[in-house]
């Protein structure tokens, strides 16, 4: 039995420590917001937060996250300024990469609320979006900064 703390809830489940966090979230817990995209930590679609830091769950063993707080896209409230900004600017197209993008942006603004355009681009460039929503993602993060009152 392993114990995982996800989105403020404790889950007890029978999986090997060697199992991949992404698949445990998706298959065992039904938390399908984090997506499989590459399995190598390149595309960012599987991003979740581990004690506030964004990690690639597709290359993370479940044994390495025990006792730590995990936040997934499902754990970020619908009315959070980041999600509101995303909806207001019609950011998602196919939407598949968006949970990873939003989790990354959430972590960025939690640590660096006043992140500059350059800092935003530098962090978010680690995520792939085939629909090309990049320009809107930048605008949405800056919009969220205004909604959060951290930038004019």
């Amino acid at each position, binding site marked *: 039995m392993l114990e995982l703390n996800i989105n403020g809830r404790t889950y007890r489940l029978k999986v*090997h420590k*060697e*199992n*991949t966090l992404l*698949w445990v979230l*998706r*298959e065992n817990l*039904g938390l*399908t*917001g*984090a*997506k*499989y*995209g*590459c*399995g*190598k930590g*390149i*595309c960012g*679609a599987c991003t979740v937060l581990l004690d506030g830091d964004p990690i690639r769950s597709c290359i993370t063993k479940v044994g390495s996250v025990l006792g730590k707080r995990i936040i*997934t*896209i*499902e754990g970020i409230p*619908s009315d959070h300024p980041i*999600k509101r900004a*995303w*909806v*207001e600017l*019609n*950011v*998602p*197209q*196919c*939407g*598949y*990469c*968006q*949970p990873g993008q*939003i989790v990354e942006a959430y972590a960025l603004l939690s640590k660096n609320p006043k992140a500059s355009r350059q800092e935003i*681009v*530098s962090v*978010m*460039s*680690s*995520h*792939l*979006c*085939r*629909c*090309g*929503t*990049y*320009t*809107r*993602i*930048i605008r949405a993060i800056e919009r969220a900064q205004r909604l959060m009152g951290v930038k004019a």
Partner: protein
Amino acid sequence: MISRRELLALSGMSLGIFLTPEGFSVGKIFEKNNLKPTLWASITRDNYLILLVNKSEMGQGVYTGLAMLVAEELDFPWDRVRVRSAPAGDAYKDPKMGTQLTGGSTSIRHMHEFLRVLGASMKEMLIQSAMDEFRLRREQVKAQGGYIRFDGRAVPYGELWEKAVRLPLPTKPKLKEPSEFIYLGKNLPRIDAQEKVDGKAIFGMDVRMDGMVYAMVERAPFGSKPLSFDASQAKKVDGILDVFPISTGIALCGASVDALLEARRKLRVSWSKSSIEGLDDSSLEKLFFEALQKEGRVVERRGNTSQEWQRATKKLSTTYLLPYLYHATLEPMCCVADVKKNSCKVFAPIQAQTQALNAVKDITGLAEDRIEIITTYLGGGFGRKAHVGFVAEAVEISKKIGKPVKLIYTREDDVLSGYYRPMSVALVRGTLDEKGRVSSLYFKVAVSSGIDWASAQGLEDMPYQVPSLYVETLSLSPPIPVWFWRSVGHSHNAFILETFLDRLAKLGNRDPLDLRLELLKNNPRARRVLEITAEKIGWGKKQNVGLAYHFSFGSHVAQGVEVIFEKGEVKVVKVVCTVDIGPTVIHPDLVVSQMESGIIMGLSAFLVEKVRFSDGKPTTLNFDSYPILTMDKVPDIEVHVVRGKGPMGGVGEPGVPPIAPAVANALLWGYELEINRLPMSLYK
């Protein structure tokens, strides 16, 4: 009678992911002009409009655009509209294509009349129903905002719907005048945005069924097949249920993805010698250029290009080479299938429902009404998911093991499965007359075979009025499967045509914009998008700018770019795009986002994309070896939507073709770089 399949679809129970409001009712079906309101829509008692959309939502915003058409005519509040995917079935075939398919940038073009008539008919039936019920005359009743209003009362549509659908279908429902529109032309919130940002939208990859197991397939390399396999070690992996051959390779079933990945490492398969053994990038190149010597199919011939070539003093000849491209949908191919003795259920992110239905019928031998195929959200499509081989595989596997199965392609499986945009090479010749006008263009194009009819797209139908034009295409058949890739032939041919025009302009010491405008004398829409774009990008004021124009899928698109080329790196600073899809623009912001999307995908292809081969196999296997564009490489993009006179054009694809030649042209004028083969990264 309404079938079980339709009932299920309408009630939305199949996925259970959408809000299912109370008091659902399904009335009788009206059989007239293929307009059967209850097959397409229902209004619940608590006043939600439920629409079944027969087109796949893959990011292009089709759920939003199509729902707006119905909501507009019905006069229904947008926040109470719910969309579900229509199941695969005859009723949901595209009325103009005769098949259920999302492709060719046609969804709005093919469905808008039908859906507006649907909405208008529903409204008239509701009005009639209110008149009957409350004994009113027509002029006393108004339908507005989801309510029938009369005498200071407001009755929700939902309370009247059950009776309304029993009324005869209006013969000529009155459509709104543009001045009466409340939604069309406005930037409404995307109907799928909230669930997508919440991680709750259900993609093919996210579907779960009770008792479901996971499956993967070890597929044969191109031009090869399995001779034998040894699964003894693979079967020992904890959680592995079975390993068996299917038509495309060796299937593995197991309780988890982790188990499958481990088992695959232990599976031993011996494959037959590949018919392309040893083939690599340079031998492919040689093969294609040699093919240009052969005789092809002449698809356009006017004037006399060979005579012009003999006669002209200013002339140019060059060749182009454009690579195989991978779609790289962020969601790899995947499918959930549950084959039972007397029925089959499929959930899949597909663009081609009719083809999927036919494939399932073939494999299961079941009658159509025993097969339910539900289209999930697509995590990207770009044409790839119109090939439904992955559905067939999942159905074959489920049938064999008698359980619901989720078939997953790893990223590597996805790349190796092929169905790339065809590779192509071209020989191009052109001449200028004594006044420096383009007098002839000659194209001979050789493409990787599979979708040959697309090989002359954008050349045979070019809007440029060139006195002499010759287009010949031929195909060659290495066993590398090819398929539609967002704008397909246009993505090749716009590059060839538009860069060649600039080289001719350079040869003749002409302004490439003037040279184009001269060839578009009778085409005010084309001229306008070019002129606006040129002005906005600073044409004539800077050296490092380039322009391109292309007409595809009924839409005129011009793009202008500003580039910087430094230390072998191309930096695209700015893109201006002007698009004319005709007088009716349903949702301007969705048009803008499709242009942004097409520009970024086209720029990605221009800069870095190529499926590479070595020893008969692709060596590009994941995003490390097949990179796609990241945010730091993306320019500012400014899109102008103009409304020209003419038929409605599409938006999903036309944004792609002009960007690559526009960048190449900027490099030509700004930096004397001639780009004859893509991607640009090869020039380093």
